[in-house]
């Protein structure tokens, strides 16, 4: 075995794993606070990609800089989704909730197809081809930037949840809705913020991959499914678990592609999911806390 190839695969995997983490913490935030499993989460990521692409194509904004456009727009989008689609069905049967988000997924994918066409769209950047050498390991600059921004944003969410009153209110609403309400926490307001934040983070995940990835209408599917694997394996509702599990999944997937075959990435992801569910159904890092 060549150790440098192994190390290279792990490093590549962890770098993209950071993006999975960022996508999954949002999914977990929605599940933890609003108790809805968002099947349209991958499509939120896809929207982030397109916002980034069009900011560049129309206004020449650098893809990483466009975070300041993507995140507020996606926050607003999340607030609208929560207010008009999720809030009316908060007490509906679980399956109706799942199908609401599946309907939203189908709608967003095909709206993107109708408006933006099925073309693959990418953004050439000045730093796209830069790579840093760390001994035998090559680290591509856009992937490193994506990783750093993802970690910073995930950490910011963690700080928000642990260190602020808003975060405390969110954690309270996640643990017990009724008691939180009795303590004077406005549930609906908290839910709006939670889904808005989750959408903003998903959009950010779409933005940071644009320097090395393509935007197309179904680009969100693979990201969405992987976010699910990460969220479940890390412990549904646990933001911390999702963060660590994202990195693990990235590495495992990269190893699968390296040593099994190009199309083994997803297979590895789902096998991890099933193994975790059999051995530890509540997820590896589940503590019941956000």
């Amino acid at each position, binding site marked *: 075995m060549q150790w440098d190839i192994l190390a290279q695969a792990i490093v590549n995997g962890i770098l993209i794993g950071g993006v999975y983490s960022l996508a999954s913490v949002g999914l977990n935030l929605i*599940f933890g606070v609003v108790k809805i*499993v968002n099947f349209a989460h991958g499509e939120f990521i896809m929207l982030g990609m397109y916002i980034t692409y069009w900011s560049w194509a129309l206004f020449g904004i650098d893809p990483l800089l466009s975070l300041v456009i993507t995140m507020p727009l996606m926050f607003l989008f999340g607030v609208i989704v929560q207010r008009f*689609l999720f809030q*009316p*069905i908060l007490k*509906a*049967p*679980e*399956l*109706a909730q*799942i*199908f*609401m988000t*599946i*309907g*939203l*997924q*189908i*709608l*967003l*994918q*095909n*709206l*993107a*197809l*109708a408006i933006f*066409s*099925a073309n693959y769209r990418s953004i050439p950047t000045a730093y796209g081809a830069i790579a840093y050498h760390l001994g035998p390991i090559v680290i591509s600059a856009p992937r490193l930037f994506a990783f750093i921004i993802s970690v910073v944003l995930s950490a910011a969410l963690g700080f928000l949840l642990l260190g602020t009153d808003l975060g405390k209110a969110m954690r309270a609403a996640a643990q017990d809705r009724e008691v939180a309400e009795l303590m004077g926490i406005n549930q609906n307001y908290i839910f709006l913020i939670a889904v808005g934040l989750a959408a903003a983070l998903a959009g950010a995940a779409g933005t940071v991959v644009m320097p090395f990835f393509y935007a197309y*209408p179904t680009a969100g599917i693979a990201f969405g*499914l992987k976010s*699910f*694997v990460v969220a*479940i394996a890390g412990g*549904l509702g646990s933001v911390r678990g999702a963060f660590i599990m994202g990195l693990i999944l990235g590495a495992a997937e990269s190893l699968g592609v390296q040593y099994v*075959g190009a*199309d*083994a990435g*997803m*297979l590895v992801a*789902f*096998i991890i*999911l*099933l193994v975790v*569910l*059999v051995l530890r*159904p509540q997820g590896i890092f589940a503590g019941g806390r956000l």
Partner: protein
Amino acid sequence: MASETTNNSVYSGPAKVGWQWRKLTTPNWYVPLIGLIILLVLPVFITASYYRHVLILVFLYAAAGEAWNLIGGYGGQFSLGHAAFFGIGAYTSTILLNAWDVSPWISMFLGGLLAILMSLVIGLTCFRLRSHYFTIATIGFAEVLRLSALYFRGLTGGAQGMTIPYLGTAPAMYQFDSKVPYYYIILFFMLLTIYLTHKIRNSRLGFYLLALSQNQEAAQAVGVDVVQAKQLALSISAFLTALLGTFYAQYLYFIEPASVFSLDTSILMPLVSIIGGIATVLGPIVGAFLIIPVRELALNLLGSSFAGAHFIMYGAMLIIIILVRPAGIIGILSQGYRTVISKLPGGKEN
């Protein structure tokens, strides 16, 4: 249906045969019978191949939704991985047909048995998972099968899929030149699933499922073997779904992982149930009659206008139905149906 006993109690005196015939004069019996007769003679009037095709798809997904409803509706275990069973049925019969000329009439049962085996694996690993975990684990199983079908090209043809050699009309090999025999076969399957669902709902298993879907701990406390009941329902559901998978392969002459093992297939089965009315005998049938023609006709009418148009309509319809009536629309329909029935000759008011 529940009112039939009160309706007939007046006639409880005469001989059994006379009582049986009396039943047919009440709308509760003759209305479904007329419906059945209409379905049986429909191919005589509908000769356009395309409309026959839409009807066949309606029956196929009605039957599949009915099979899903056993575990997903009555059992309350929301599987989003039934494509696993559907695909096992389709691939088992097609692989055996292409390799050894085994008649699909025989191999469909083998596919059913393999699906039961798969349902045991899913049951053993997933039944201790709660709600969302179970749902996502079932997606995981179906996806592993889909990706495996892509990966093991030697056996399954990979992404290119498998074709079934065309033999013209060969009833022994489950092949027909016309759509009419397929129409009656799938109509039979749909009626079979309705009959089985009706039977199961009124059986011990049906009551166990009802109890455990409402409150698992309480059901366990009164002595229901929860795991066994769920497993039995899932296995029956898996077996029926696999038979439909074989039908799908024989009807379309072509299968690929992206169709039979897809998440879209897994979604369609619960979808028709929830649109029609979950955990009701006729809900999936109503749902399929609503969803499938809209899907197909929209594809036909809007498909050429701009890309994605029909799916935009489909997604929007899904969102609107759930916003307006999260419990499905069979409630409204059955109310209207009861009102109409009570006004027909032989109804309560006569």
